[in-house]
């Protein structure tokens, strides 16, 4: 019973960075832009967030710095793909490679440093409920922030005019342009916001989750978050669920190890990646469904004017 509560708690905690990044990418893609640079943005933000939190001692500043770094890198990416119409896949890959390089470079002095002990997190009162308390209410505030963000983004998409405009831009930038909407600025805003959420996710990883900086510490979570958006048919609520599912898989490997399962740790370590592949296969099997859900202009360049 207690074990299960701990597993649930660990799942929530491991799912949070995936959820944050996945939600950010979801906003991106709803506006019609694929950012394969998620991994790179998260790495840059992870090292930025860690450095700021390390020097100032303030997690909050660390998060802010991480989000700002993510937004900044994303804005650079956005400028290239939205204004210069460079290939979205190639540019995104460049961001990932570049992010890996620059974070490794900038983080050299922080390798092996540890942030001061994180305090236990607990929601007053609720955390004392038997089972539910340890399972759900002893998370860092950002874990609840991710849930709130999913709700807020869903409300934005489906309950506000601005959200409708964003979806319209992703559906048909030409039509939106013809109606007089500033397609490029809307896309840039979506990309920057997506970058900020990816940045927050990176900072959460280095400041709260581990909490230390290691080169390449994002370990494919950016790519898994990209898979999440497809898995979730670009719906925020499903992104959240998917993130916890993957978080659960990650935790399962430790759980299996602890239970003495006779499988080398490397194979258990493959679980998150293999399950991503399996989920992709299951979800993509029906191309018609994907086509109906997918923002129609996803990945395609847009030229305003003539």
């Amino acid at each position, binding site marked *: 019973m207690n074990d299960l509560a701990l597993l649930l708690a660990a799942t929530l905690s491991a799912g949070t960075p995936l959820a944050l990044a996945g939600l950010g990418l979801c906003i991106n893609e709803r506006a019609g832009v694929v950012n394969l640079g998620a991994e790179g943005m998260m790495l840059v933000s992870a090292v930025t967030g860690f450095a700021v939190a390390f020097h100032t001692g303030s997690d909050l500043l660390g998060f802010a710095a991480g989000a700002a770094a993510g937004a900044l890198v994303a804005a650079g990416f956005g400028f290239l793909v939205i204004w*210069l119409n460079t290939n979205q*896949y190639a540019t995104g890959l460049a961001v990932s*490679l*570049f992010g890996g390089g620059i974070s490794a470079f900038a983080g050299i002095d922080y390798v092996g440093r540890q942030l001061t002990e994180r305090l236990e997190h607990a929601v007053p009162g609720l955390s004392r409920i038997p089972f539910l308390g340890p399972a759900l209410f002893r998370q860092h505030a950002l874990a609840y922030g991710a849930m709130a963000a999913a709700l807020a983004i869903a409300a934005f998409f489906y309950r506000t005019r601005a959200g409708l405009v964003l979806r319209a831009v992703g559906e048909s930038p030409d039509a939106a342009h013809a109606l007089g909407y500033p397609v490029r600025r809307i896309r840039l805003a979506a990309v920057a916001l997506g970058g900020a959420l990816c940045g927050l996710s990176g900072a959460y990883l280095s400041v709260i989750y581990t909490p230390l900086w290691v080169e390449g510490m994002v370990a*494919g979570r950016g790519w898994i978050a990209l*898979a999440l958006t497809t898995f979730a048919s670009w719906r925020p609520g499903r992104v959240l669920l998917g993130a916890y599912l993957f978080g659960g898989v990650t935790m399962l490997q430790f759980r299996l190890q602890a239970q003495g399962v006779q499988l080398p740790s490397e194979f258990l370590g493959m679980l998150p990646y293999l399950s991503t*592949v399996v989920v992709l296969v299951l979800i993509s099997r029906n191309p018609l469904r994907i086509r109906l859900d997918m923002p129609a202009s996803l990945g395609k360049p847009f030229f305003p004017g003539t």
Partner: protein
Amino acid sequence: MIRLEVRSTPSRLASALSPLAALLFTVAVAGLIFWALGKDPVRGLKVFLWEPLHGTRGLTELGLKATPLTLCALGLTVCFRSNVWNIGAEGQYLMGAIGGGGLALWFTNAGLDVGRWGFFPLLLLAGALAGAAWAAVVALLRDRFNASEILVSLMLVYVANLFLTWLVFGPWKDPKGFNFPQTTSFAAFTEVPRLVPGMRLHLGYPVALLLAVAVWVFMFRTHRGLQLQVGGPAPLAARYAGFSARAALWMVLLGSGALAGVAGAFEAAGPMGQLTPHVSMGYGFTAIIVAFVGRLHPLGAVLSSLLLAVFVIGGELAQSRIGLPAALSGIFQGVLLFSLLACDTLINHRVRWGGSRGR
């Protein structure tokens, strides 16, 4: 605000100058970074860009590093041209290294001396098969289940990496290796024949160059090659013409997987002479940059792999000579790719500054 106008025909001048402009911009940024880090920019650039070209040793090392880059980038060139986004060349490379290295290990342990020239074709085959098999997983899942090749190929990189780690920490670990994660050193006859006495440059490089020419002929002089290139920019035209998209998918993935696998096998049985977790140094990822900087052209890939090899070696030298981290090289590679992508816009577009509609 900037405004772009589409040119009706791509500018030849811009096409030729764009990589050069991108390189110049990258060098300028590199100089700035050296300066910002309190190092002499001229000396920094000299160490980074000039010294790798210095002397027989420098040049042969350049060819050595360019070998895996060329091989991987050749496959990616064909993939990207046909709109198949295989970004997992790194994984295919690792599997090739495991295949080739495993074969060398098996021959070593069995004491089966077939001679250098006898082993070389076997090595080539083992690497190609292992790499192609790994890429075949991507092709299968894409073909049968429509799963994104981008994500699947990348996930398989992590899996391949963990698999290699398991091998060298576990079943293939050298029993006399003081518990280091590495295999026994391979027998001498398994080594890829070297070209220059005393230098590590090996037969793999001429093989890569030959393959580059072959890929060029295939892409630009045969109907099959043309078919692959139609599917990328104009899938509807390919359908109209009756070119099979499935055949193209399988062909480019198996081909690029095989090429990356060969690169891995060469590295394992060439300069390494054993398998360790560090058989790659990220060649499969750097090759993505090589392919783009080479303008998705096989002969361009030959040139750009030399350029990127300079960057890789330059990074190592910068570390040993002026105490800068080797990760710097990764930054320069990223800047190069960014600026190239931006410069490429100029080939197909005319930029107008100011003016009205920049929204």
